[in-house]
């Protein structure tokens, strides 16, 4: 199948299937376990981590609070340096712009560096429809593309595949896309990396057009930054004649100096390295070095709607490091595909429903795809309080409220599917505010304790399918207190 996120089932349904996938669970457990331990060591090396993290968050907040100012400044700087800036309000417009730019070069092939923004817009499909073949050059993206699969992790899109699956994909599919896999390819990661090197080299040397994203765009100088490991980024950013970078508007940072913060936070949080192997920085075009033509496509696609929510906008601080995925116990069990978007894991659970709006059962289910354990917040290098945003979005789902959709403020109604729950919560709220009623309930429960089954029928089965119910005590704490110490507390509500 060819990967698409359309029509994804809601998170609990998708996760029900993926949690049963023993191989997926094993792959994810091993991979995230490895990176968690490494990240802890990489972060512990910097005794000022907390201050760096606070500075990173503050720079992002400053940028977001004055995003119009910085976007205009970025446009001026990039233009001054010889680049051309385009603005795309949504995915379709971004794809239209990029397709037009590629067609104008006369080329029908592009090489691509891993870019979350173009995954979000579904650029490859749009290019294909225009007769342009896009080659993904990041190793994991290549695995995903050859396998007709979807990415399941921000940093390591093929994290759901283990080495022998990757070998099988290379053996069976590389020939369809160019140079076939070498004879006798083994499943050692070094051999697989070598196969990718050979397969992609001729594409790099031939390519006239490249498409990239960017990790940062410096407003003050017009500098773009791509942080990578393999060198495929450098290949794409320097060998072709034309470079088109599609960048979300939240990727702007105010000053050159700000990079000193993010270039410390990002590598240690994402690949758990002191520094990633390659970081490329370019400002417009340079005579005799690199692409002669540079286009920057600034992408909105729901970001301004997210910005309009004063709590939800903090998700726009995200620097796509994926530390939150790697520490998330829900992600580890459910896998990335269950999140139905290029942004899986905790950050996806807050970004996707905001970028797309609470448009379908999938987006409505994502804010609930968390135990609120807080591991993501703790790991986030720009201190995004993901649990707080999750709870905030849950409120929008169950109670409705003001949201912004494609630039227009509107009020959404409570989600239909939560009607029964709303009634239960209303009743619970009333009972909790009426301790006498609560006590009557407790006593009823205690009197009937011999009758309670270990397993519940109906909707209660979601609890008791996997867990025994506790015994109901014969006497609540309240009743015990009254019986043994009655009168020492204040009297309200006791009678």
């Amino acid at each position, binding site marked *: 199948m060819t990967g698409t996120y359309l029509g994804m089932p809601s998170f609990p349904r998708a996760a029900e299937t993926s949690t049963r996938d023993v191989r997926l669970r094993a792959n994810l457990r091993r991979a995230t376990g490895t990176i968690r331990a490494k990240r802890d060591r990489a972060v512990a090396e910097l005794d000022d981590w907390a201050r760096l993290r606070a500075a990173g968050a503050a720079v992002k907040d400053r940028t977001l609070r004055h995003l119009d100012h910085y976007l205009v400044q970025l446009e001026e700087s990039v233009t001054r340096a010889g680049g051309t800036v385009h603005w795309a309000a949504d995915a379709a417009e971004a794809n239209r712009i990029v397709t037009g730019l590629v067609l104008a070069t006369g080329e029908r092939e592009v090489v691509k560096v891993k870019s979350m923004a173009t995954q979000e817009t579904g650029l490859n499909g749009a290019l294909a429809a225009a007769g342009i073949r896009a080659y993904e050059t990041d190793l994991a993206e290549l695995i995903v593309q050859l396998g007709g699969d979807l990415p399941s992790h921000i940093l390591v899109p093929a994290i759901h595949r283990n080495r022998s699956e990757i070998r099988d994909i290379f053996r069976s599919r590389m020939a369809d896309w160019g140079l076939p896999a070498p004879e006798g390819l083994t499943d050692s990661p070094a051999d697989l990396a070598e196969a990718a090197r050979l397969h992609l080299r001729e594409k790099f040397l031939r390519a006239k057009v490249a498409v990239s994203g960017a990790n940062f765009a410096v407003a003050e100088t017009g500098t773009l930054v791509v942080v990578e*490991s393999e060198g495929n980024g450098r290949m794409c950013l320097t060998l072709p004649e034309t470079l088109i970078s599609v960048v979300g508007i939240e990727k702007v940072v105010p000053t050159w100096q700000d990079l000193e913060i993010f270039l410390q936070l990002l590598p240690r949080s994402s690949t758990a390295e002191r520094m990633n192997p390659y970081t490329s920085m370019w400002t417009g075009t340079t005579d005799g070095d690199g692409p002669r033509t540079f286009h920057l496509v600034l992408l909105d696609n729901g970001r301004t709607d997210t910005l309009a929510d004063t709590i939800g906008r903090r998700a726009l601080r995200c620097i796509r490091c994926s530390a939150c995925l790697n520490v998330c116990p829900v992600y580890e069990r459910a896998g990335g595909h269950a999140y139905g978007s290029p942004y899986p894991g905790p950050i996806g659970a807050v970004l996707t429903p905001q970028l797309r709006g609470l448009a379908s059962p999938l987006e409505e289910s994502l804010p609930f795809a968390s135990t609120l354990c807080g591991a993501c917040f703790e790991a986030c290098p720009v201190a995004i309080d993901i649990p707080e945003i999750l709870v905030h979005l849950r409120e929008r789902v169950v109670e409705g409220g003001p949201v912004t959709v494609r630039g227009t403020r509107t009020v959404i109604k409570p989600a239909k599917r939560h009607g029964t729950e709303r009634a239960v919560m209303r009743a619970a709220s009333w009972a909790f505010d009426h301790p006498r009623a609560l006590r009557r309930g407790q006593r009823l429960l205690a009197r009937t304790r011999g009758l309670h089954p270990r397993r519940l029928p109906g909707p209660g089965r979601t609890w008791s399918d996997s867990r025994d119910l506790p015994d109901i005590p014969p006497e609540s704490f309240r009743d015990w207190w009254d019986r043994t110490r009655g009168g020492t507390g204040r009297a309200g509500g006791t009678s």
Partner: protein
Amino acid sequence: MSGDSSRKRILGRVRRALRDVPASEQPADHPVARDYAEKHGERSHAATVGLLAENLADYRALVHRTNAPGLPALLTRLLLERGARRVAVPAGLPAGWLAAAPAELLVDSPALTSHELDSVDSVVTGCALAIAETGTVVLDAGPDQGSRRLTLVPDHHICVVRTGDQVVDSVPQAVRRLSPERPLTWISGPSATSDIELERVEGVHGPRTLEVVLVTGDPREL
């Protein structure tokens, strides 16, 4: 829909989204405390160079040390050991560095094709600076470094770092010294991937072997 109207639309949406931000607030009014460390730990310059060597080696770069007069002999030996017959060099590489190397030199120029570069065995360059805490060398396309692709396509890169004036402690110190007007490439070890089971493998598309020569004294006049 014209690009200009989308520009207007997006900026309009941004401004409406930020209604909660007081109109009088300037960007600088939102505080950013830059109280993080300018470098991590107190060290002598020699210890900083030692840390650079250690961190380079930790990410599988091969590290060598020499003094300025010993540089040509060392470079010659490294190229011989590699069996390098064709070596790419930037136009501004001091002539003396490879005077004794028994190799054909290809000098960087816009006329050099990527396929030609793909046929060379090694590339030898200087650098803009090196960062000890992260084990990074930074190239800024200066005359002794050449264009960005020069150090990318060949499989073997030898990078010369002057320990006297090119080694900084930290990322903040590096950022303050570098100019964003130049194309920059930060290199920390040979190319690598962790895309298969998050296990690091050195060597994908960039040079699979990175050798860093830490040289004392000033080799620019060689």
